């Protein structure tokens, strides 16, 4: 079936060696996310500088290859972006996972988009969509500095 698409090398690699799996010193915003059905959880730490740019982003948490890879790739891609840009990327990614075939943001280059598209394999696995989107929802919560715990339930 589509297992190959789901578990592409890059996913496995990021899943095994996630980038930014740590806690940012002096983070300015953070948020926790969790998936109550499977117990996966993630904690995003964000440090914005005076220009509202992401100076550092990191995460702690635990989950499957998909969710770890997703958090890993995400944190890599949004570093250095402005708050508004981050929001655009998040929306674009979530739209892609939900319904669109492609990413449309101009804020990422082709390489970066290709990396992100590796996560599109979950579209064929409805129960796993939440694994791919948890860290993204949580990032939104952190951006909004929301005290609520993000959840993938809708």
């Amino acid at each position, binding site marked *: 079936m589509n297992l190959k698409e789901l578990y592409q090398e890059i996913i496995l690699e990021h899943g095994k060696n996630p980038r930014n799996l740590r806690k940012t010193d002096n983070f300015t915003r953070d948020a926790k996310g*969790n998936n*109550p*059905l*499977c117990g996966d959880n993630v904690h995003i730490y964000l440090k914005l500088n005076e220009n509202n740019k992401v100076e550092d982003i990191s995460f702690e948490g635990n989950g499957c290859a998909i969710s770890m890879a997703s958090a890993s790739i995400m944190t890599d891609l949004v570093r250095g972006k402005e708050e508004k840009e981050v929001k655009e990327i998040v929306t674009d990614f979530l739209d892609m996972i939900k319904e669109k075939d492609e990413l449309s943001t101009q804020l990422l280059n082709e390489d970066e988009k290709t990396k992100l598209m590796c996560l599109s394999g979950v579209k064929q696995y409805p129960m796993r969509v939440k694994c791919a989107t948890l860290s993204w929802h949580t990032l939104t919560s952190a951006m909004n500095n929301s005290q609520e715990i993000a*959840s993938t339930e*809708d």
Partner: protein
Amino acid sequence: MHIGKIKKEFPIFDNKVQNNDLVYLDSANSSQKPRIVIDRIYDFYSKEFSNVGRSVHYLAVAATNLYEQTRTSVQKYINASDKNEIVFTKGATEAINLVANTFGQKYLDEGDEVLITELEHHSNYVPWHFLRKSKKINIEFAEVNDQGEVTLEEIKKKITDRTKIICVTHLSNVTGAILPIKEIVSFAHSKGIPVLVDGCQGAPHLKLDMQDLDCDFYAISGHKMYGPTGIGVLYAKKKWLEDLPPYQGGGGMIREVKKKGISYGELPNKYEAGTMATAQVIAFNESIKFLEKIGIENIEKHERELLDYAVDLLGKNNSVNIIGNPKNKGGVISFTIEGIHPHDIATILDEDGVAIRAGHHCCQILHEKLGLPATARASFGVYNTKDDIDQLNKSINNCKKIFNLK
């Protein structure tokens, strides 16, 4: 689907009951089930069964989707503004208990009043009575008038500064009275009081529009709506479901469980603890589709014709006394026959295959008011015809003969 042919969709009518054609006039108690609902249950268990929400394997994913599709169907059918306003319960009784328990916990204190009506089914009284005991609240009763109705004026009269919630039936399961819910809600809201509607009898027979009614809670029984037993719906405005505490605790309704404390899940999970009635929820989707296919307007029209016909026919029958005469009435006729107890009527009718109910119909308050310990009740569903009413009348005449009445 032609309404005259609908009986064919219900397998129960394919067979004789004790050598008679079944004349089923007990739909207010529970409705019969159309073939598509029965088949859906069969197919689900035979080919698709899995628990929902908890596993990631194929069958579980498919079942979870089906389960959530019913939620969406119900949302659309009753025009709720959000699918998470639909909570599945085991029946209307549980739905009302859920509200009484959680609303009571949070908002009722000693001396507060819950306003119900004399028409209420025990299911919309006993749960509030529990709070009378545990929280020392009072229960006030809006009175029924001579027509068997509860009017808006009567409700207004009974509201006080202490009234914290109003709980009314949409359609009386005894007199058939349809209450002016929209007006009651609008007035109650002007006083800041939420309204719970017992929609058991409303849901199968009336067009439902939650956004238009604007009530805070609406309780539905699946089994009276051509659906399986063991499934009900609580509609509640999102603000309430977010605000009130959970009702039952267990798997599926939590967010995080630690030894020191527990946080609860988002809607709709928060109110759906433990394994739900999966197959029943999934099959209930077919009941909704069935109702949609016929069209609730057609059902209302058909049942109104039957009702008019029956009221006319029984009205002409000597010694039959119809209980109540509400201006706005659904397909329920409770009656007595001078000199024959309702249980005897029911037994004798049954010999002809005519299934009605006798007793207090879980409305003892109303029966006490009426000065009658019991009544006989014929209630209609989509599958009934004028022939059924004719047979009812004939069998009533047989009762009279056996009891030597004229």
